[in-house]
């Protein structure tokens, strides 16, 4: 602590043992500095540059103690006495040291104000001398007894603080006073600004509209993200909408009608996750609309893991995720001239399902047969770029079934690598993937994938776990990658079969993630590279625009755990 000349006569609170420093400066020579406490000399300083002293309040009784600093300064008058260094001026500065060795008294929060600047908390000043600091204690609603990252304020006169990174969160707040003789807590006050209430849903002929209130804290607002999933599942894997604009407070899913019970989730992400702020999540359950929907012209219907997906050939478009009951609610579109539709259906947790054949004109049920082992990652809804109008094949999350409609016999079942969640195939003997990747199969197992762009063959073992890469022209083995346990755990949406190839190695000092992430001819390609720890959650989220990219993560501590997963989120 520094003693100021401007504060001579002031009373200084000394809550802890303190090194005081001061500075007596004059053009004249300083001969001696004497320090008196309560008129008793307790220190003499002859080494003038070291103008400091130590004061431990525990050694003194409670109360006010007079501190005098006497500087004995050479007069420089030129007289004989001055010449003999025996003529001096005395400069005396007096301060009062306040000592209070008693436990602190609690203070109370005066007010908590939410404004565009953030969250402002004000509290009563603490008056006793043994003040060390204020501590702002933020308790999250989910763990009210845990103080999250306490914020310390050492200025006794500061009785308010504004958290500019606040974007709305349910918090319990208390302010405590820390002293050397104990801690006194204020009572907790609740901050209940949920910022995105109410989340409303409107289902009408135009589509499906979700609305919410504008976030009230623009300083740290990052984005809105609207997710959905089938009720009552809590894994919100379908991102319907995202926007960094704080004024975007509604989203309309045109030409889409949710007809069944589902759950919606709105996430407000802060711009910065500094200090205590985290995502704000609000959910609403929706019981579904009592409406049918139309099948678009030339549309196609495919299935995925118990959900049926309806789409046309012109654009990637998800119409609806449906459960088993959707069959009865499907209506055909008037203009559809397509062939018969097939779709599959299964329970969410079932290893078996049903493939249905539907009449293209009426969508009426024609026939069905059971299939088995409809396994794979569930609850993922895909946006499909295109589809064959084949009536001979259907692909589920990890199996591809080719069948003959005439005989209704499954011709082949293929294994697919687990990262491939959905492809469409043709029925000409080859499995043709979008993005110009050609598949062939032998003996019922898919063994070769030819990439027509790169002329590199890719082989899969029938386990789907080992990935071989071979230079086709030279027939040279290039590399082997084991994808087992490296499947992205976060939501992974794959555009076609060209799954992200993510190579990573943990070197001594850095972590490398690189790969080819998608269709480089796509104009709207963008994706996030996700680094996820199952135990710690999201560690890194990097927006990527270059489909061929490598990233070196020098922060090795990020990967202290061996259970790190990489994923690519195609936006």
């Amino acid at each position: 602590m520094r003693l100021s000349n401007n504060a001579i006569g002031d009373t200084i609170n000394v809550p802890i043992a303190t090194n005081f420093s001061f500075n007596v400066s004059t053009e004249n020579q300083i001969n001696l500095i004497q320090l008196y406490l309560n008129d008793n000399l307790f220190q003499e300083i002859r080494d003038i540059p070291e103008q400091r002293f130590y004061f431990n309040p525990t050694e003194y009784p409670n109360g006010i103690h007079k501190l005098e600093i006497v500087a004995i300064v050479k007069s420089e008058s030129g007289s004989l006495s001055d010449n003999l260094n025996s003529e001096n001026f005395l400069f005396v500065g007096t301060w009062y040291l306040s000592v209070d060795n008693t436990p602190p008294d609690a203070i109370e929060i005066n007010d908590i104000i939410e404004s565009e600047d953030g969250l402002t908390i004000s509290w009563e000043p603490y008056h006793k001398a043994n003040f060390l600091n204020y501590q702002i204690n933020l308790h999250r609603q989910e763990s009210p007894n845990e103080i999250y990252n306490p914020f310390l304020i050492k200025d006794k006169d500061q009785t308010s603080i504004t958290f500019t990174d606040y974007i709305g969160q349910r918090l319990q707040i208390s302010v405590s006073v820390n002293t050397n003789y104990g801690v006194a807590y204020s009572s907790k006050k609740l901050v209940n600004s949920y910022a995105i209430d109410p989340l409303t849903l409107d289902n009408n002929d135009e589509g499906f509209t979700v609305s919410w209130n504008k976030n009230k804290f623009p300083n740290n607002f990052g984005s809105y993200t609207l997710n959905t999933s089938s009720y009552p599942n809590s894994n919100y894997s379908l991102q319907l909408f995202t926007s960094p604009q704080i004024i975007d407070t509604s989203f309309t899913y045109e030409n889409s009608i949710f007809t069944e019970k589902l759950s919606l989730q709105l996430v407000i992400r802060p711009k910065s996750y500094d200090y205590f702020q985290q995502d704000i999540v609000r959910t609403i359950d929706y019981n579904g609309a009592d409406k049918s929907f139309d099948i678009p012209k030339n549309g196609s219907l495919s299935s995925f893991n118990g959900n049926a997906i309806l789409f046309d050939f012109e654009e990637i478009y998800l119409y609806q995720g449906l459960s088993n009951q959707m069959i009865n609610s499907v209506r055909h579109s008037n203009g559809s001239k397509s062939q018969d539709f097939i779709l599959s259906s299964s329970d969410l947790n079932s290893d078996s399902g049903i493939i249905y054949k539907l009449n293209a004109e009426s969508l009426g049920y024609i026939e069905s047969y059971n299939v088995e082992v409809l396994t794979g990652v569930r609850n993922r809804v895909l946006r499909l770029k295109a589809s064959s109008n084949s009536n001979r094949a259907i692909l589920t999350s990890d199996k591809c079934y080719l069948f003959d409609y005439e005989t209704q016999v499954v011709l082949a079942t293929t294994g697919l690598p687990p990262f491939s969640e959905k492809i469409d195939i043709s029925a000409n003997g080859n499995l043709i993937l979008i993005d110009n990747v050609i598949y062939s199969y032998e003996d019922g197992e898919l063994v070769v994938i030819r990439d027509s762009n790169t002329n590199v063959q890719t082989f899969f073992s029938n386990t789907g776990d080992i990935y071989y890469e071979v230079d086709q022209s030279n027939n040279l083995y290039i590399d082997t990658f084991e994808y087992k346990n490296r499947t992205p755990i976060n939501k992974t949406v794959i555009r076609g079969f060209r799954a992200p190839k993510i190579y990573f190695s943990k070197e001594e000092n850095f972590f490398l993630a690189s790969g080819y992430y998608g269709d480089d001819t796509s104009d709207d390609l963008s994706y996030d590279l996700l680094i996820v720890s199952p135990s710690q959650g999201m560690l890194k989220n990097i927006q990527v625009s270059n489909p061929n990219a490598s990233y070196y993560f020098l922060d090795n501590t990020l990967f202290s755990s061996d259970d790190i997963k990489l994923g690519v989120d195609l936006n």
Partner: protein
Amino acid sequence: MKCICIIFICISFNTFAYSQNFEISLRTGFGSFQMRDLKEIQDEVLEQTKITISDLKKTSSFPVYSVFGISSGISMTDYSISAIFNYESTGSRIAYNDYSGSYYFDQIAKNFILGGNFKKYSKHRIPLNNYFFKPFFNFNSGISLSHITFIDKLTIGDEQLIEKLELREVSSFVEPGFGLSLFISKIKIEPNLSIHIPTYRSGLFLEGNFDVKFEDEDGPIHASWFGVRMGLNITFIF
């Protein structure tokens, strides 16, 4: 001092035994004193003192100062012999004072001379305004005891710091001179001029301890009383 008086009385009575005219002479006058070593000490003190005030100066440096003496002896027609006791003093001072205090460095020099005097009067008389002056040659010799006192005195406010040093020196001397003698009734008035020449000098030593001598790189330090003496003797003849 007591010893000096006894010697003086003995010499006086001894001469009285052979005199035709007994006379007692009182002497006063002025003398100049060389005091080379002590002046050097004064200069060194001035240079080396811890007081750095520019106004610190020498206010006195062994100036011409009065001398006194008494002698007794016998006189005959053209000469006289007497025992003499002279006292000489001089001194120096470095001084400064202002409102806050004062500083002095003094050297006080005193010389006690014990010796004999021989005067040879000329037969020629010089008339002047009905008076006749008789020239004479004068010669003194003897020993001298010098008292030198160094006093360093600093006064700041009510406080004083005094350092004092007492030194002594024993020396012998000769002092030739001349003068005029005016005889009026039983009184002789004799202005005279002489030169004091030390012959043997012991060097300054600490009072009470002859073995503690003061020397510098050039050898012993002396209180040099070399100089001219101008005096007036008034002699009473019995």
